[in-house]
């Protein structure tokens, strides 16, 4: 079977009609993984034996496929818990930690019959925009292995682009689903904050973190979202939301109004800039109305993000102390256990962010940094609210200022690395849904297109994405 053009929808039809056995389907994905994974490094752990056994069960005569995800191969980012399996969050400090329960989303996927092939590589504790901070080595971009796949959901994005799986789950705190999706030329959705329970997600910055689907088509994003969304009593910020119609219907361009923010810098390279302008031109030609948006506080978004996110990290990561989980450095004194465990267990980027967070929360700096950033966050949220009250259906932005960069290019230059998130962090700060879809091909890499929607308008941005794909 040709795996290259397969989507969840197509594979599910083939399984249900008996055109292919589940064993053959899963086995051929593992063949592909074994052939190419050494070059890509998209998985931290693989569950071959178990996955093939699950597939065999589904091939028994009496078995009836229960859902469209039944028998579909998935990759789960390694910060989402899978019971009795190692869950490292890409860090040495959790190298040998085994999860004692399933994340809410994993429970949902398993109930639907999805087959998890393995856990995806990622930047350590989701701190990174290139996949390079993983303790388990960098992931490489399948479109060009000299390039980074983006991060922090580097493994799921690369595995999808390499056609190792048909679906993936990532997490997005400031762009960690959308930016790697853009770099690898796949589809990624950060749903509205609250649409999906974070129970069983190793927390990075709790007010920004959101689990979301990564896939090979817009329909597949919607299909996965329908299974994993919902209110969960273990996450008090989660809310009930309605099912999205699949297949997703493309919006009529003549009835769509899109906003373009004025107060944000343009892509730095000419090709990327032109690629984005081309999209606007094409949409205009087809009848889409464009509105210039005055989001006056958007220029502060990245700075605000790099104050609030480290502050929350410094609190969330204090639980990794050598006493409760994973790696421990034995010392005589309790304080020394904490210090040596954390110094050896965490990588440089994570340590930088923990210290930054403790700095901006410390006496004398709290008001100047953390509190001020929280106030601007409120202004950014209000700016978006006003924009959406002005009758627009979505906001259009590039996903990233440039296509995938070279491995090693930015790892020693934090500000340049952080700037890759400039178009993605605003949606997290305001809790809005946003997706990335592949745009124009530039030198073998994709310039991703991002659509941001109003709260709980996830379906609308999927419909707009379908419309963009149609034109």
């Amino acid at each position, binding site marked *: 079977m040709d795996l290259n053009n397969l989507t969840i929808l197509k594979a599910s039809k083939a399984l249900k009609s008996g055109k292919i056995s589940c064993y053959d389907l899963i086995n051929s994905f593992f063949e592909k993984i074994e052939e190419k994974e050494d070059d890509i490094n998209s998985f931290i752990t693989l569950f071959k034996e178990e996955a093939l056994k699950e597939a065999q069960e589904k091939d028994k005569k009496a078995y009836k496929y229960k859902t469209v995800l039944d028998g579909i191969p998935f990759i789960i980012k390694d910060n989402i818990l899978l019971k009795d399996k190692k869950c490292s969050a890409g860090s040495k400090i959790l190298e040998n930690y*085994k999860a004692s329960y399933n994340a809410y989303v994993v429970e949902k996927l398993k109930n639907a019959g999805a087959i998890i092939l393995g856990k995806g590589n990622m930047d350590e504790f989701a701190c990174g925009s290139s996949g390079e901070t993983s303790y388990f080595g960098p992931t490489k971009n399948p479109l060009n292995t000299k390039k980074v796949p983006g991060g922090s959901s580097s493994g799921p994005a690369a595995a999808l682009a390499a056609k190792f799986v048909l679906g993936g789950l990532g997490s997005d705190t400031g762009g960690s689903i959308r930016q790697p999706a853009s770099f690898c030329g796949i589809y990624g959705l950060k749903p509205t904050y609250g649409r999906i329970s974070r129970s069983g997600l190793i927390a990075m910055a709790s007010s920004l973190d959101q689990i979301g689907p990564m896939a090979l088509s817009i329909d597949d994003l919607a299909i996965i979202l329908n299974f994993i969304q919902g209110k969960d009593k273990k996450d008090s910020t989660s809310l009930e939301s309605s099912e999205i119609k699949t297949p997703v219907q493309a919006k009529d361009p003549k009835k769509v109004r899109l906003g373009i923010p004025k107060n944000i810098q343009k892509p730095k390279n000419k090709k990327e800039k032109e690629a984005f302008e081309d999209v606007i031109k094409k949409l205009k030609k087809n009848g889409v109305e464009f509105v210039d948006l005055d989001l006056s506080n958007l220029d502060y978004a990245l700075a*605000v993000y790099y104050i609030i996110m480290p502050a929350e990290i410094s609190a969330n990561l204090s639980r990794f102390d050598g*006493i409760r989980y994973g790696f*421990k450095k034995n010392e005589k004194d309790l304080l020394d256990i904490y210090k040596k465990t954390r110094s050896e267990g965490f990588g440089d980027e994570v340590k930088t962010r923990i*210290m930054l967070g403790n*700095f901006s929360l410390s006496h004398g700096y709290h008001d100047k940094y953390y509190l*001020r950033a*929280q106030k*601007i966050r409120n202004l950014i949220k209000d700016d978006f609210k006003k924009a959406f009250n002005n009758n627009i259906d979505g906001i259009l932005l590039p996903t990233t200022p440039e296509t995938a960069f070279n491995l090693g290019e930015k790892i020693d230059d934090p500000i340049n690395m952080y700037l890759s998130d400039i178009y993605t962090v605003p949606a997290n700060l305001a809790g809005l849904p946003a997706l990335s879809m592949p745009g124009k091909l530039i030198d073998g890499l994709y310039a991703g297109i991002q659509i941001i929607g109003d709260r709980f308008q996830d379906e609308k941005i999927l419909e707009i994405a379908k419309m963009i794909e149609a034109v």
Partner: protein
Amino acid sequence: MISKKDIKHIATLSRIDLNDKDIKVYQKKIKDVLDYVKKIKKADIDGVSSFKSVSNNENVFKSDKPKSINKQESQSLVNSAPDNEDGFIKTKPIFKKEK
């Protein structure tokens, strides 16, 4: 400018051990980030309240009642601790013995 002393102080708050070489590296990195984020000084925040949540949720409470879980579950939680014995997590003493 963030001093070496500042870095040592926040490293202690962060429970991270740094040698002299590390201190220099982190001093540079943290300075770079602080130089970038200082643009927030320009924002007009007069009368703006602090961000609470994206959804304007009220606090969500649950009753403060202990819930029992089965032995296997509790043991699996205890097992994630590197040092444990008889269903307890082991740690070094926090208080010093009186002499």
